[in-house]
């Protein structure tokens, strides 16, 4: 589904990602862990198509196509979803209108007619239940005035609405208490099928107690320095990131 080959990414002339290789297949869950500043969020945003993130070298194939040539919206319409570490507040844009526009852009891309108002409301309610986002969303602007936990749930809610093929969740666990974490993880698990895949980016091992990864990769200084099964996460938790730093001196 996703094949990353020797990817290098620079921001403002500074190289952050220094040659990453990764393959993600349908049905898999990959966890990418690493200390702060290792390039986790840069990798996620570059895959989602953030402008000003300059890919200086390498190739990324997604569903057999060259991902790097597509603008962000096209990547999204083809099923790539980024759950933001810091969801953006957009005053004045209602969440309902935002989601309706997004859902319809996806439908248009698939050659479908816009969703009916009643179907849309039904879908909203269903997906809100899935992630435990029980606040009344009508008349609320995107993320404006949302608590930290609500913002993260809102990300998973949007993911549920858009039903992605490949979801990249960037530190979705940060700032969540254990109950919220369970709800978010539960949402992700319910959306898992054999046809989609998830990349979970996290600093801590605790999220991986709830979303069980098939593979764990450790990112350090812009490179993947270790890859293994889920036991790697446990080992990291035990030994800490100093273990990685020592090994990569």
């Amino acid at each position: 589904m996703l094949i990353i080959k020797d990817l290098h990414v620079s921001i403002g002339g500074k190289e952050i990602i220094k040659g990453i290789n990764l393959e993600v297949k349908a049905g898999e869950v990959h966890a990418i862990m690493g200390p702060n500043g290792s390039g986790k969020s840069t990798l996620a945003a570059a895959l989602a198509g953030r402008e000003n993130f300059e890919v200086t070298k390498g190739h990324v194939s997604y569903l057999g196509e060259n991902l790097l040539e597509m603008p962000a919206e096209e990547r999204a319409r083809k099923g790539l979803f980024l759950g933001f570490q810091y969801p953006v507040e957009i005053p004045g844009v209602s969440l309902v209108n935002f989601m309706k526009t997004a859902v319809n852009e996806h439908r248009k891309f698939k050659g479908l007619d816009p969703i009916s108002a009643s179907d849309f409301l039904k879908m909203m309610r269903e997906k809100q239940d899935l992630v435990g986002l029980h606040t009344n969303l009508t008349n609320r602007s995107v993320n404006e005035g949302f608590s930290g936990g609500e913002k993260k749930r809102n990300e998973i809610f949007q993911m549920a609405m858009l039903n992605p093929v490949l979801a990249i969740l960037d530190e979705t666990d940060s700032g969540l208490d254990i109950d919220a974490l369970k709800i978010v993880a539960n949402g992700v698990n319910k959306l898992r099928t054999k046809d989609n895949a998830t990349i979970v980016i996290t600093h801590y091992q605790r999220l991986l107690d709830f979303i069980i990864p098939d593979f764990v990769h450790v990112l350090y200084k812009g490179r993947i320095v270790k890859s293994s099964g889920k036991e790697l996460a446990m080992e990291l938790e035990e030994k800490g990131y100093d273990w990685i730093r020592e090994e990569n001196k």
Partner: protein
Amino acid sequence: MNETILTPQDISAEWLRLYRDNSDILTKNSGEILNSQRAKALDDFMRLGIPSTKNEAYRYTRVEDYLKGNYDAEFTNDPFKVDLREIFKCDIPELDTHVVLVLNGFYYTDNNPAGLPDGIIVCGLNEASVKYPDIFRQHYGKYAGTETDGLVALNTLFANDGVFVYVPDGMSLERPLQIINLSFSLRNLRITRRNLFVTGDNSSCSIVLCDHTLCAHSYITNSLTEIYAGRNARVDFSRMQNENSLSSQITHAFIHQEESSKVTSNTISLHGGLIRNNFFVRLNGTGCESNLYGLFLGDDNQHIANFTLIHHAMPQCTSNQLFKGILDDNATGSFNGKIYVSRDAQKTLAYQKNNNILLSPAARMNTKPHLEIYADDVKCSHGATVGRLDTEAMFYLRSRGIGEKEARQLLMYAFADEIISKISVSILRERIIGLVDKRLRGELARCNNCDVRCG
């Protein structure tokens, strides 16, 4: 062809000539009270002239560039008979508003605002000056002093018609009054419009002004509205400006508020070559509230300027100003906002904000707050921003599959919505939402049923 460079003095002389050539017919066709103010206006205009950019209030607006050229002027009502209701059909359903039309500054003779409550007067300005001399004399020219701005003097000098509204003490106009100002002629035209709205103690009303050019000729419009709000009056004053890009519009609103009155003004500048709006508010009694809101959208070579002066003359009044603009292409804009707090106006709350988005590298915005405070127990604030569309928000929207164009549209609309949501007349708000949306999409923002292409 050589274009002679005209100075503000040359242009002032041209206007004076126009006045002298036509003063006989002008005074013959106007009521005595209108005429009684011309001598002073003439003196003041001769002294002040057309404001140049050396005048601080006009620093960013070169009015002289817009007030020259070959233009006719009309000094009598109805120079040719047209059925305005045939050529202009506004799509705000008439059932919900009282509608009156004003053609080239003249109150349309076939206006018949039906269903007005007894005692409430809506009629032509000139007609009112003759029919209701007592009320008229008490208020006409009392708020719009001609001593400081040459364009105010010029308006008073040429004033001969417009709309008069009188809401007596304790009465209220339940449905909004909609005044549609139309510019329509066979030649380029100079238009002077003068309105007087008097709202008595404990009265309330909502007035919507719409400015339209109905053909592709060029118009220079000098429009002045005096609003008197009696004690505890509630006045809602909205204006929608939609003129073609050859036309220049200068508006002055003089708002005089007595004790505990509340006046909210909402000005949506959709389109026009030059739009210059001057607001003068005098809070003349304790406990007044003044809200001035404005949204302006400019592209091409348009220039849109808003000037405000809020005078807190008495204690315990509140004023809020919020002006927001989006400028594209080579459009320029300015906001010049002044808050003046007199020595005795303690416990004043005065807020001012101006936010702008520039969509192109050539678009320019000048914003200048000005606070002059002589009382010591006041809360005043001002803030101004000029920026571009938020790139973080753009990426967020696009990462959900929303195309760049649509994402820009959502963000621009969200920016504008803060002003639009303050329009209290719901039917107007609904329509403004549609017009602003179209305007921001680069489609012509004209009324659905209107066949004339403004722009």
